[in-house]
Protein backbone atom coordinates (compact mmCIF):
# COMPACT_ATOMS: atom_id res chain seq x y z
CA UNK A 1 0.00 0.00 0.00
CA UNK A 2 1.43 3.44 -0.88
CA UNK A 3 2.54 5.59 2.07
CA UNK A 4 0.00 8.33 1.34
CA UNK A 5 -2.84 5.76 1.52
CA UNK A 6 -1.58 4.48 4.87
CA UNK A 7 -1.51 8.00 6.27
CA UNK A 8 -5.04 8.60 5.12
CA UNK A 9 -6.21 5.34 6.78
CA UNK A 10 -4.57 6.33 10.07
CA UNK A 11 -6.22 9.73 9.97
CA UNK A 12 -9.60 8.07 9.48
CA UNK A 13 -9.11 5.62 12.43
CA UNK A 14 -8.77 8.48 15.00
CA UNK A 15 -11.31 11.20 14.29
CA UNK A 16 -9.96 14.70 14.92
CA UNK A 17 -12.55 15.55 17.59
CA UNK A 18 -11.60 12.41 19.61
CA UNK A 19 -7.83 12.96 19.49
CA UNK A 20 -6.43 13.44 23.01
CA UNK A 21 -9.66 12.23 24.62
CA UNK A 22 -7.76 9.69 26.76
CA UNK A 23 -5.40 12.39 27.98
CA UNK A 24 -8.35 14.60 28.90
CA UNK A 25 -9.93 11.70 30.74
CA UNK A 26 -6.72 11.16 32.68
CA UNK A 27 -6.45 14.82 33.61
CA UNK A 28 -10.10 14.84 34.63
CA UNK A 29 -9.54 11.66 36.58
CA UNK A 30 -6.60 13.16 38.42
CA UNK A 31 -8.62 16.26 39.27
CA UNK A 32 -11.59 14.24 40.50
CA UNK A 33 -9.28 11.93 42.41
CA UNK A 34 -7.80 14.89 44.23
CA UNK A 35 -11.29 16.15 45.02
CA UNK A 36 -12.40 12.73 46.34
CA UNK A 37 -9.35 12.48 48.55
CA UNK A 38 -9.75 16.06 49.79
CA UNK A 39 -13.43 15.53 50.56
CA UNK A 40 -12.58 12.37 52.53
CA UNK A 41 -14.73 9.99 50.46
CA UNK A 42 -15.82 7.26 52.90
CA UNK A 43 -15.50 4.31 50.52
CA UNK A 44 -12.07 5.34 49.30
CA UNK A 45 -10.73 5.87 52.78
CA UNK A 46 -12.35 2.71 54.13
CA UNK A 47 -10.58 0.69 51.43
CA UNK A 48 -7.31 2.49 52.17
CA UNK A 49 -7.63 1.83 55.91
CA UNK A 50 -8.46 -1.82 55.29
CA UNK A 51 -5.48 -2.22 52.93
CA UNK A 52 -3.18 -0.65 55.51
CA UNK A 53 -4.46 -2.77 58.40
CA UNK A 54 -4.26 -6.03 56.44
CA UNK A 55 -0.75 -5.29 55.09
CA UNK A 56 0.61 -4.20 58.47
CA UNK A 57 -0.83 -7.31 60.14
CA UNK A 58 0.61 -9.56 57.44
CA UNK A 59 4.08 -7.99 57.64
CA UNK A 60 4.16 -8.13 61.45
CA UNK A 61 3.01 -11.76 61.44
CA UNK A 62 5.66 -12.63 58.86
CA UNK A 63 8.36 -10.66 60.70
CA UNK A 64 7.83 -12.50 64.00
CA UNK A 65 8.93 -15.77 62.39
CA UNK A 66 10.93 -14.57 59.39
CA UNK A 67 13.45 -12.37 61.23
CA UNK A 68 14.58 -15.07 63.71
CA UNK A 69 14.66 -17.61 60.88
CA UNK A 70 16.76 -15.28 58.68
CA UNK A 71 19.26 -14.71 61.51
CA UNK A 72 19.37 -18.45 62.25
CA UNK A 73 20.01 -19.28 58.59
CA UNK A 74 22.89 -16.80 58.51
CA UNK A 75 24.46 -17.93 61.80
CA UNK A 76 24.05 -21.67 61.81
CA UNK A 77 25.28 -24.11 59.16
CA UNK A 78 23.26 -27.28 58.61
CA UNK A 79 22.68 -29.67 55.73
CA UNK A 80 20.27 -28.23 53.19
CA UNK A 81 20.74 -24.62 54.31
CA UNK A 82 21.80 -23.37 50.87
CA UNK A 83 18.83 -25.08 49.24
CA UNK A 84 16.47 -23.56 51.79
CA UNK A 85 17.95 -20.07 51.31
CA UNK A 86 17.70 -20.38 47.52
CA UNK A 87 14.10 -21.61 47.77
CA UNK A 88 13.17 -18.67 49.98
CA UNK A 89 14.89 -16.25 47.59
CA UNK A 90 12.86 -17.77 44.77
CA UNK A 91 9.75 -17.26 46.88
CA UNK A 92 10.31 -13.49 46.82
CA UNK A 93 8.84 -13.42 43.33
CA UNK A 94 5.95 -15.74 44.10
CA UNK A 95 2.89 -14.87 41.97
CA UNK A 96 0.14 -13.44 44.15
CA UNK A 97 -2.52 -15.38 42.24
CA UNK A 98 -0.76 -18.63 43.14
CA UNK A 99 -0.80 -17.69 46.85
CA UNK A 100 -4.43 -16.65 46.43
CA UNK A 101 -5.27 -19.93 44.77
CA UNK A 102 -3.58 -21.96 47.52
CA UNK A 103 -5.30 -19.82 50.13
CA UNK A 104 -8.63 -20.40 48.43
CA UNK A 105 -8.01 -24.17 48.45
CA UNK A 106 -7.12 -24.03 52.15
CA UNK A 107 -9.98 -21.83 53.34
CA UNK A 108 -12.80 -23.03 51.09
CA UNK A 109 -15.53 -25.14 52.69
CA UNK A 110 -13.97 -28.40 51.53
CA UNK A 111 -10.41 -27.27 52.29
CA UNK A 112 -8.38 -28.36 55.34
CA UNK A 113 -9.04 -25.03 57.10
CA UNK A 114 -12.63 -24.69 55.85
CA UNK A 115 -14.00 -25.21 59.36
CA UNK A 116 -12.61 -21.83 60.46
CA UNK A 117 -14.94 -20.04 58.02
CA UNK A 118 -12.23 -17.59 57.01
CA UNK A 119 -12.79 -17.43 53.25
CA UNK A 120 -13.81 -13.94 52.07
CA UNK A 121 -12.60 -12.32 55.28
CA UNK A 122 -9.83 -9.73 55.91
CA UNK A 123 -8.14 -12.34 58.13
CA UNK A 124 -7.82 -14.72 55.18
CA UNK A 125 -6.19 -11.97 53.09
CA UNK A 126 -3.79 -11.13 55.94
CA UNK A 127 -2.83 -14.80 56.41
CA UNK A 128 -2.15 -15.28 52.70
CA UNK A 129 -0.22 -12.01 52.47
CA UNK A 130 1.89 -13.24 55.38
CA UNK A 131 3.13 -16.00 53.06
CA UNK A 132 3.86 -13.33 50.47
CA UNK A 133 5.89 -11.24 52.94
CA UNK A 134 7.62 -14.18 54.61
CA UNK A 135 10.26 -15.04 51.94
CA UNK A 136 11.07 -11.35 51.46
CA UNK A 137 11.76 -10.75 55.15
CA UNK A 138 13.69 -14.03 55.61
CA UNK A 139 15.86 -13.43 52.55
CA UNK A 140 16.65 -9.81 53.41
CA UNK A 141 17.41 -10.70 57.03
CA UNK A 142 19.63 -13.56 55.95
CA UNK A 143 21.49 -11.31 53.50
CA UNK A 144 21.95 -8.56 56.10
CA UNK A 145 23.27 -10.85 58.84
CA UNK A 146 25.46 -12.81 56.39
CA UNK A 147 27.02 -9.52 55.33
CA UNK A 148 27.79 -8.56 58.91
CA UNK A 149 31.41 -8.75 60.06
CA UNK A 150 31.87 -12.30 61.46
CA UNK A 151 33.66 -10.84 64.49
CA UNK A 152 30.28 -9.78 65.92
CA UNK A 153 29.07 -13.39 66.17
CA UNK A 154 32.49 -14.57 67.37
CA UNK A 155 32.69 -11.89 70.06
CA UNK A 156 29.20 -12.70 71.26
CA UNK A 157 30.09 -16.39 71.39
CA UNK A 158 33.39 -15.88 73.21
CA UNK A 159 31.69 -13.68 75.81
CA UNK A 160 29.45 -16.61 76.66
CA UNK A 161 26.18 -15.57 75.04
CA UNK A 162 23.69 -18.33 74.35
CA UNK A 163 22.56 -18.84 70.75
CA UNK A 164 19.28 -16.87 71.13
CA UNK A 165 21.14 -13.99 72.78
CA UNK A 166 23.72 -14.03 70.02
CA UNK A 167 20.96 -13.93 67.38
CA UNK A 168 19.34 -11.01 69.18
CA UNK A 169 22.70 -9.17 69.16
CA UNK A 170 23.19 -9.83 65.44
CA UNK A 171 19.65 -8.68 64.66
CA UNK A 172 20.26 -5.45 66.59
CA UNK A 173 23.43 -4.81 64.60
CA UNK A 174 21.48 -4.94 61.31
CA UNK A 175 18.27 -3.38 62.57
CA UNK A 176 18.05 -0.80 59.78
CA UNK A 177 18.24 -3.53 57.17
CA UNK A 178 15.49 -5.36 59.02
CA UNK A 179 13.22 -2.31 58.91
CA UNK A 180 14.01 -2.02 55.22
CA UNK A 181 13.02 -5.67 54.74
CA UNK A 182 9.71 -5.05 56.51
CA UNK A 183 9.05 -1.95 54.40
CA UNK A 184 9.72 -3.87 51.19
CA UNK A 185 7.39 -6.66 52.29
CA UNK A 186 4.77 -4.06 53.20
CA UNK A 187 4.98 -2.45 49.76
CA UNK A 188 4.48 -5.86 48.12
CA UNK A 189 1.47 -6.73 50.30
CA UNK A 190 -0.10 -3.29 50.08
CA UNK A 191 -0.23 -3.23 46.30
CA UNK A 192 -1.07 -6.88 45.60
CA UNK A 193 -4.33 -7.77 43.89
CA UNK A 194 -4.43 -11.55 43.32
CA UNK A 195 -4.75 -12.64 46.96
CA UNK A 196 -7.26 -9.94 47.94
CA UNK A 197 -9.41 -10.83 44.95
CA UNK A 198 -9.30 -14.61 45.37
CA UNK A 199 -9.59 -15.09 49.14
CA UNK A 200 -11.14 -11.71 49.93
CA UNK A 201 -13.75 -11.67 47.20
CA UNK A 202 -13.81 -7.85 47.01
CA UNK A 203 -16.86 -7.57 49.30
CA UNK A 204 -17.96 -3.99 49.95
CA UNK A 205 -17.44 -2.79 53.55
CA UNK A 206 -15.71 -6.07 54.38
CA UNK A 207 -12.82 -7.18 52.20
CA UNK A 208 -12.52 -4.45 49.60
CA UNK A 209 -8.95 -3.14 49.47
CA UNK A 210 -7.48 -0.30 47.43
CA UNK A 211 -6.19 -2.66 44.75
CA UNK A 212 -9.45 -4.62 44.36
CA UNK A 213 -11.49 -1.41 44.48
CA UNK A 214 -9.34 0.10 41.73
CA UNK A 215 -9.88 -2.97 39.54
CA UNK A 216 -13.62 -2.98 40.21
CA UNK A 217 -14.18 0.74 39.61
CA UNK A 218 -12.18 0.64 36.38
CA UNK A 219 -14.11 -2.38 35.09
CA UNK A 220 -17.39 -0.57 35.89
CA UNK A 221 -16.23 2.46 33.95
CA UNK A 222 -15.84 4.56 37.13
CA UNK A 223 -12.52 5.79 35.92
CA UNK A 224 -12.32 8.72 38.36
CA UNK A 225 -12.84 6.61 41.48
CA UNK A 226 -10.38 4.04 40.16
CA UNK A 227 -7.89 6.83 39.64
CA UNK A 228 -8.42 8.08 43.20
CA UNK A 229 -7.75 4.62 44.61
CA UNK A 230 -4.61 4.25 42.50
CA UNK A 231 -3.41 7.68 43.60
CA UNK A 232 -3.67 6.74 47.26
CA UNK A 233 -1.84 3.49 46.50
CA UNK A 234 0.80 5.50 44.71
CA UNK A 235 1.14 8.08 47.51
CA UNK A 236 1.59 5.39 50.16
CA UNK A 237 4.03 3.48 47.93
CA UNK A 238 6.03 6.69 47.44
CA UNK A 239 6.02 7.35 51.21
CA UNK A 240 7.31 3.82 51.82
CA UNK A 241 10.00 4.30 49.15
CA UNK A 242 11.01 7.60 50.79
CA UNK A 243 11.21 5.94 54.20
CA UNK A 244 13.32 3.16 52.68
CA UNK A 245 15.63 5.70 51.03
CA UNK A 246 16.02 7.61 54.31
CA UNK A 247 16.85 4.38 56.11
CA UNK A 248 19.38 3.39 53.47
CA UNK A 249 21.06 6.78 53.82
CA UNK A 250 21.11 6.39 57.61
CA UNK A 251 22.62 2.93 57.25
CA UNK A 252 25.32 4.18 54.88
CA UNK A 253 26.10 7.02 57.29
CA UNK A 254 26.39 4.59 60.19
CA UNK A 255 28.69 2.21 58.36
CA UNK A 256 30.88 5.06 57.07
Amino acid sequence: MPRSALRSNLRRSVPPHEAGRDLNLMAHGLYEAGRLIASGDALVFAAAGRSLAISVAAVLLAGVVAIPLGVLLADKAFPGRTLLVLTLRGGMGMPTVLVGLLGFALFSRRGPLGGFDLLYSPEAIAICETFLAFPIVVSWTHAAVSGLDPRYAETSRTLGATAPRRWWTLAKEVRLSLVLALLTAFARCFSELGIAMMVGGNIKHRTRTLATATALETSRGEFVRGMAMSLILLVIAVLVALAAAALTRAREKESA
Partner: protein
Amino acid sequence: MIMIRVRDLEVKRAQRVVCRVPELDVHSGELVTIHGPNGCGKTTLLRVLGGLETAFRGVACVDGERVFVHQDPVLFRGTVMANVRYGLVAHGISNVRSRSLDVLAKLDVAHLAARDVRYLSAGERRRVALARALVLRPRVLLLDEPFDELDSDGRSRTRKMLADLSGAAIVIASPHPLSFSSRNVSLAGAAQQSR
Protein backbone atom coordinates in the same frame (compact mmCIF):
# COMPACT_ATOMS: atom_id res chain seq x y z
CA MET B 1 47.94 -27.16 86.57
CA ILE B 2 47.89 -27.28 82.78
CA MET B 3 45.13 -25.08 81.35
CA ILE B 4 46.05 -25.31 77.68
CA ARG B 5 47.52 -28.34 75.97
CA VAL B 6 48.41 -28.38 72.29
CA ARG B 7 49.91 -31.34 70.46
CA ASP B 8 50.76 -31.62 66.76
CA LEU B 9 48.33 -28.89 65.84
CA GLU B 10 48.00 -28.18 62.15
CA VAL B 11 45.54 -25.84 60.46
CA LYS B 12 45.19 -25.80 56.70
CA ARG B 13 43.44 -23.32 54.43
CA ALA B 14 43.14 -23.94 50.71
CA GLN B 15 45.59 -26.88 50.95
CA ARG B 16 48.16 -24.67 52.65
CA VAL B 17 49.33 -25.02 56.24
CA VAL B 18 48.68 -21.70 58.00
CA CYS B 19 49.53 -22.79 61.53
CA ARG B 20 51.66 -25.59 62.90
CA VAL B 21 52.40 -26.04 66.61
CA PRO B 22 54.09 -29.30 67.62
CA GLU B 23 53.72 -28.79 71.35
CA LEU B 24 52.53 -26.12 73.74
CA ASP B 25 51.45 -26.27 77.38
CA VAL B 26 50.26 -23.25 79.33
CA HIS B 27 49.86 -23.52 83.07
CA SER B 28 47.53 -21.72 85.41
CA GLY B 29 48.89 -18.27 86.30
CA GLU B 30 51.22 -18.23 83.32
CA LEU B 31 51.38 -15.48 80.69
CA VAL B 32 52.72 -16.82 77.42
CA THR B 33 53.49 -14.67 74.41
CA ILE B 34 53.28 -16.29 70.99
CA HIS B 35 55.42 -14.20 68.70
CA GLY B 36 56.51 -14.35 65.11
CA PRO B 37 56.26 -12.56 61.79
CA ASN B 38 53.01 -11.81 59.99
CA GLY B 39 51.28 -14.90 58.65
CA CYS B 40 53.05 -17.38 60.94
CA GLY B 41 49.74 -18.49 62.46
CA LYS B 42 49.60 -16.62 65.78
CA THR B 43 46.01 -15.50 65.30
CA THR B 44 44.97 -18.90 63.97
CA LEU B 45 46.42 -20.60 67.05
CA LEU B 46 44.50 -18.23 69.33
CA ARG B 47 41.32 -18.79 67.34
CA VAL B 48 41.70 -22.54 67.70
CA LEU B 49 42.23 -22.16 71.46
CA GLY B 50 39.25 -19.79 71.62
CA GLY B 51 37.02 -22.38 69.94
CA LEU B 52 36.44 -20.17 66.91
CA GLU B 53 38.39 -22.37 64.52
CA THR B 54 37.24 -25.96 64.50
CA ALA B 55 38.82 -27.35 61.33
CA PHE B 56 42.25 -28.51 62.51
CA ARG B 57 44.34 -31.61 63.04
CA GLY B 58 45.94 -32.56 66.32
CA VAL B 59 45.03 -31.82 69.90
CA ALA B 60 44.01 -28.44 71.34
CA CYS B 61 42.52 -28.79 74.82
CA VAL B 62 41.49 -25.81 76.92
CA ASP B 63 40.42 -26.29 80.49
CA GLY B 64 38.00 -23.68 81.78
CA GLU B 65 36.15 -20.57 80.65
CA ARG B 66 37.98 -18.88 77.77
CA VAL B 67 37.65 -15.44 76.25
CA PHE B 68 39.23 -14.36 72.98
CA VAL B 69 39.80 -10.72 72.06
CA HIS B 70 40.33 -9.95 68.37
CA GLN B 71 43.27 -7.96 67.07
CA ASP B 72 40.80 -5.35 65.84
CA PRO B 73 37.88 -5.89 68.20
CA VAL B 74 34.31 -4.91 67.39
CA LEU B 75 32.00 -3.28 69.90
CA PHE B 76 28.29 -3.90 69.91
CA ARG B 77 25.87 -1.10 69.13
CA GLY B 78 25.08 0.92 72.25
CA THR B 79 27.01 2.38 75.13
CA VAL B 80 30.35 1.42 76.63
CA MET B 81 28.58 0.15 79.75
CA ALA B 82 26.23 -2.04 77.68
CA ASN B 83 29.28 -3.61 76.05
CA VAL B 84 31.11 -4.29 79.29
CA ARG B 85 27.96 -5.72 80.89
CA TYR B 86 27.31 -8.02 77.91
CA GLY B 87 29.32 -11.01 79.07
CA LEU B 88 28.31 -10.59 82.73
CA VAL B 89 24.63 -10.63 81.83
CA ALA B 90 25.19 -13.62 79.52
CA HIS B 91 26.76 -15.51 82.42
CA GLY B 92 23.99 -14.47 84.82
CA ILE B 93 26.45 -12.70 87.12
CA SER B 94 25.00 -10.25 89.61
CA ASN B 95 26.49 -6.92 90.68
CA VAL B 96 27.01 -6.12 87.04
CA ARG B 97 27.27 -2.34 87.22
CA SER B 98 29.82 -2.03 90.01
CA ARG B 99 32.00 -4.76 88.52
CA SER B 100 31.88 -3.10 85.12
CA LEU B 101 32.67 0.34 86.52
CA ASP B 102 35.55 -1.10 88.54
CA VAL B 103 37.22 -2.59 85.45
CA LEU B 104 36.55 0.52 83.38
CA ALA B 105 38.14 2.63 86.12
CA LYS B 106 41.23 0.42 86.19
CA LEU B 107 41.63 1.00 82.46
CA ASP B 108 40.94 4.73 82.94
CA VAL B 109 37.77 4.75 80.82
CA ALA B 110 35.09 4.88 83.54
CA HIS B 111 34.18 8.40 82.39
CA LEU B 112 33.14 6.89 79.03
CA ALA B 113 30.63 4.46 80.55
CA ALA B 114 27.56 6.24 79.17
CA ARG B 115 29.10 7.14 75.81
CA ASP B 116 27.90 5.63 72.54
CA VAL B 117 30.67 3.38 71.20
CA ARG B 118 30.49 5.09 67.80
CA TYR B 119 32.14 8.14 69.31
CA LEU B 120 35.21 6.41 70.76
CA SER B 121 38.75 6.73 69.48
CA ALA B 122 40.65 3.61 68.36
CA GLY B 123 42.56 3.46 71.65
CA GLU B 124 39.39 3.88 73.69
CA ARG B 125 37.68 1.13 71.70
CA ARG B 126 40.61 -1.14 72.44
CA ARG B 127 40.41 -0.42 76.18
CA VAL B 128 36.65 -1.04 76.22
CA ALA B 129 37.10 -4.35 74.39
CA LEU B 130 39.74 -5.37 76.94
CA ALA B 131 37.48 -4.31 79.81
CA ARG B 132 34.65 -6.38 78.32
CA ALA B 133 36.89 -9.46 78.42
CA LEU B 134 38.68 -8.78 81.72
CA VAL B 135 35.47 -8.11 83.64
CA LEU B 136 34.61 -11.80 83.21
CA ARG B 137 37.81 -12.86 85.00
CA PRO B 138 38.20 -15.83 82.66
CA ARG B 139 40.37 -18.86 83.48
CA VAL B 140 41.87 -18.63 80.00
CA LEU B 141 42.38 -15.27 78.28
CA LEU B 142 43.47 -15.11 74.64
CA LEU B 143 44.56 -11.69 73.41
CA ASP B 144 45.47 -11.01 69.79
CA GLU B 145 47.98 -8.15 69.70
CA PRO B 146 46.29 -6.34 72.61
CA PHE B 147 48.72 -3.44 72.75
CA ASP B 148 47.99 -2.17 69.24
CA GLU B 149 46.67 1.41 69.26
CA LEU B 150 47.26 1.77 73.01
CA ASP B 151 49.35 4.61 74.36
CA SER B 152 51.98 3.98 77.05
CA ASP B 153 49.44 4.60 79.83
CA GLY B 154 47.03 2.10 78.25
CA ARG B 155 49.81 -0.47 77.92
CA SER B 156 50.92 -0.19 81.53
CA ARG B 157 47.32 -0.30 82.81
CA THR B 158 46.61 -3.39 80.68
CA ARG B 159 49.78 -5.07 81.92
CA LYS B 160 48.77 -4.36 85.50
CA MET B 161 45.28 -5.76 84.96
CA LEU B 162 46.69 -8.89 83.37
CA ALA B 163 48.98 -9.33 86.38
CA ASP B 164 45.93 -9.02 88.64
CA LEU B 165 44.22 -11.95 86.91
CA SER B 166 45.74 -14.42 89.33
CA GLY B 167 45.36 -18.05 88.39
CA ALA B 168 44.39 -17.35 84.81
CA ALA B 169 46.30 -18.70 81.83
CA ILE B 170 46.95 -15.84 79.42
CA VAL B 171 48.14 -16.22 75.85
CA ILE B 172 49.08 -13.12 73.90
CA ALA B 173 49.82 -13.02 70.19
CA SER B 174 52.42 -10.40 69.40
CA PRO B 175 54.84 -9.68 66.57
CA HIS B 176 57.66 -9.38 69.12
CA PRO B 177 58.56 -11.11 72.42
CA LEU B 178 57.17 -9.28 75.46
CA SER B 179 59.47 -8.63 78.39
CA PHE B 180 56.83 -9.16 81.09
CA SER B 181 55.76 -12.60 79.82
CA SER B 182 56.45 -15.74 81.80
CA ARG B 183 57.45 -17.33 78.51
CA ASN B 184 57.91 -16.28 74.90
CA VAL B 185 57.18 -18.89 72.25
CA SER B 186 58.24 -18.34 68.67
CA LEU B 187 56.01 -19.53 65.85
CA ALA B 188 58.55 -18.55 63.22
CA GLY B 189 59.61 -22.17 62.76
CA ALA B 190 56.09 -23.22 61.99
CA ALA B 191 55.74 -20.39 59.51
CA GLN B 192 58.90 -21.41 57.69
CA GLN B 193 57.77 -25.03 57.59
CA SER B 194 54.36 -24.07 56.26
CA ARG B 195 55.93 -22.11 53.47
